[in-house]
Each structure stands twice: as structure tokens, then as C-alpha cells.
């Protein structure tokens, strides 16, 4: 597999959330607006890049039996870094994402890539894989956020284009489940064709 394919697989073919349905919690919780969705996606991408790089660098130094705890420590370290940096420099985004920043640590995508890809491949492939998966996740969150923001508050990126309210349910919890359900169905259709 060449690097271009390795990078693009994360967007549609193996999209972590839309095809593999991994990382559903942050996806549903943080996509009440496009900006929040993108912010969450980028935070996850940073963690993925960091953990994929470190795990593939150290893959020969970690004995097999303790690989999972070792991976978890590496991931948790990067998550805490993201947490502190976002708290310091983007406080409003940090507040709206809230508890879901520390919860990146249990996002199955991150541990999944470390275990399934980074621990078996070269550093460069792992970086590309992390970037592709992360940005694929970010794109999915951005699109879902945009859909919910347009339908729910009649705005996009914070700019309102209708006066009054949208279909409020889309910003609320039920709308998140329903919108994601339909998005997964559409991507399934695209992948089949």
C-alpha cells in the first residue's frame, strides 16, 4: 500500500467513525456546532499523531505482554498535554468540549491505531496513518457539526442566516443520534457503490 492510499483510507473507506463506528461518544457530544466538532477532531488528531509516532518508535522496546498498559500511558500523556495546552490558549473551546478532552484517552480509535497499525509499521507510515485517520475523523465531525448547526440553529460557523430558531432537536441529544445514524447509512451506500 502506498502512502497516498494509506493517508486517504481514513476519509471514506476506513473512516473511524462512519465505517468502523469507533469514537461515537465524542462524535455525538461535541458536534452541536461545526467549530466544536472541528476542535474535537483536531485535538484527537494531535493525540493520534503523537501516540502513533511514539508507539512505532518504541515498538521494539516494549515487551508484548505489557504493550497495552505502555500504550495507554503514552496516549494519556498526549491527552494531558492537549488538555493543558487547550486550557491555556483556547479557553472558550476548552470549556465547550469540557470533559470530552480527557476522555480522548478512552477513544477506541487512538488505542486501536496504536495496537493495529503503529506497533507493526514504520514510523513514517504510522505518522501518515495517524494523520489520515485523525483528519478523516475531523472531517466527519466537522460535517456532522455543520449539519446539526445548519438544521438546529440556522447558522454555520456561528453566522446565522435565518432569523429565529432552527429545528432545535438537532442541537439536542436526540438529533445527534439521528443525524449520525443517517450519515453512517449514506457512507455505507457510497462505499458499496
Amino acid at each position: 500500500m502506498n502512502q497516498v492510499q494509506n493517508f486517504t483510507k481514513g476519509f471514506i473507506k476506513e473512516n473511524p467513525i462512519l465505517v468502523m463506528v469507533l469514537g461515537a461518544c465524542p462524535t455525538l457530544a461535541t458536534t452541536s456546532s461545526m467549530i466544536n466538532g472541528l476542535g474535537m477532531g483536531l485535538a484527537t488528531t494531535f493525540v493520534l499523531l503523537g501516540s502513533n509516532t511514539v508507539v512505532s518508535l518504541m515498538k521494539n522496546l516494549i515487551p508484548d505482554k505489557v504493550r497495552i498498559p505502555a500504550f495507554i500511558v503514552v496516549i494519556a500523556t498526549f491527552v494531558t498535554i492537549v488538555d493543558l495546552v487547550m486550557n491555556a490558549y483556547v479557553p472558550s473551546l476548552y470549556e465547550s468540549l469540557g470533559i470530552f478532552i480527557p476522555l480522548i484517552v478512552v477513544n477506541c480509535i487512538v488505542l486501536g491505531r496504536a495496537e493495529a497499525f503503529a506497533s507493526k509499521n514504520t514510523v513514517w507510515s504510522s505518522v501518515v496513518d495517524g494523520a489520515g485517520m485523525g483528519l478523516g475523523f475531523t472531517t466527519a465531525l466537522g460535517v456532522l457539526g455543520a449539519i446539526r448547526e445548519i438544521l438546529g440553529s440556522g447558522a454555520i460557523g456561528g453566522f446565522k442566516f435565518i432569523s429565529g430558531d432552527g429545528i432545535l432537536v438537532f442541537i439536542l441529544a436526540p438529533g445527534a443520534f439521528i443525524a449520525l445514524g443517517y450519515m453512517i447509512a449514506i457512507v455505507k451506500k457510497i462505499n458499496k457503490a
Partner: protein
Amino acid sequence: MAKIQSSLKNMVLSLTLISVGASAALGFVYEMTKGPIELTALNKKLDAIKQVVPEFTNNPNDDMFMLPTGEGDSLEVYPARSGEEVVGYAVKSYTNNGFSGYISFMVGFLPDGTIYNISVLEHKETPGLGTKMVPEGTPEKPEFKDQFKGKHPADFPLKVRKDGGPVDAITAATISSRAFCEGVQRAYNTFEKGGLK
């Protein structure tokens, strides 16, 4: 380099190594971000205070003191001074009765007890309904919280119309509106009992 074996020595060694590395990295980032994090939190508080009291020249955060609410807890009070003269007090109040629980406010009083302005600090209310308590309106298009401006709680009971008061509740968000009134009332009670008037 060949993969190392899963012997006890190797396992302990590699986990220790990783933990030490992780702790070192985190300690470093923590030291680096500590200043900015404290600064953002302080700025946020000062911004809220600036919004709710007239212009001041002191640093209200340095002059902060606590006043008991009479319900067993205390609220933070930030006095705002212009020169030596006290121009207002910002009281950090709260309520637990929002539609989704806890809401905190910064309520600004003039020295005579008149409400100058109110700012919502934290809330989890329903988007599009309860959240309407947050924005500041314009004279042409006033928002919910604008109706409190310039009112004195002594002759403006902090109650929504449904409860016999003068406050127009947010449409379809009576519980949020009621909680808002309760939080402001708590700030006023504390302010009044504290003898600041």
C-alpha cells in the same frame, strides 16, 4: 533491532522508562501552561466583572471578600472602586434549580442596591431556550436579562409573572427564568445582609 523478550526484567524496565518519560514531559508542559491557564481564568472573571459594574480603576480580584448568604454558604464579592469611591459590587451568585441544574452568575449592584447588569458565567441550559438568558440585547431589541437593568430588588420583586412577579419569563423556559431570578435574589439578599448598602 530485534524485539525484546517479555521477561520480567524487561517488562518492569520498559514500563518504568515510559512512566518516567511521560511524567517528565507532563511536568514540563504543566510548568509551561500554568501561567497562561491562571491568566485566562483571571481575565475571564475580570471581563465578567467589567460587564456588570460601572467603570473602575482598582483590581476587584485583589479586594475580593466573602459574605455569608444566610443559607450556610458564602458568596464572593468583588468591590469596584473608581479612585477611593466605591462605584459598585459584583457578587458571584449561583442556583441549583436550572433546567439542567447548576447555573452561576456575576450580578453587579450599584452601592444603593440597584442592579447594574448581570452576566451568566456557567450553565447547561437547553440550547435555543434556556440559553436565551445569556445574551445582552440592544435598546431596540432587548433580551431577557435586560429587564433587570436599573431595577432595585426592593421595589422589583424577582419573580416571573407566573409566580406573581413583574419578570417576563423566556418563552418555553420558565424553569430557567425562575432559576435566574432565584440566583439574582440570592446575590441581593447576601448584598443587603452584608450591610454594603
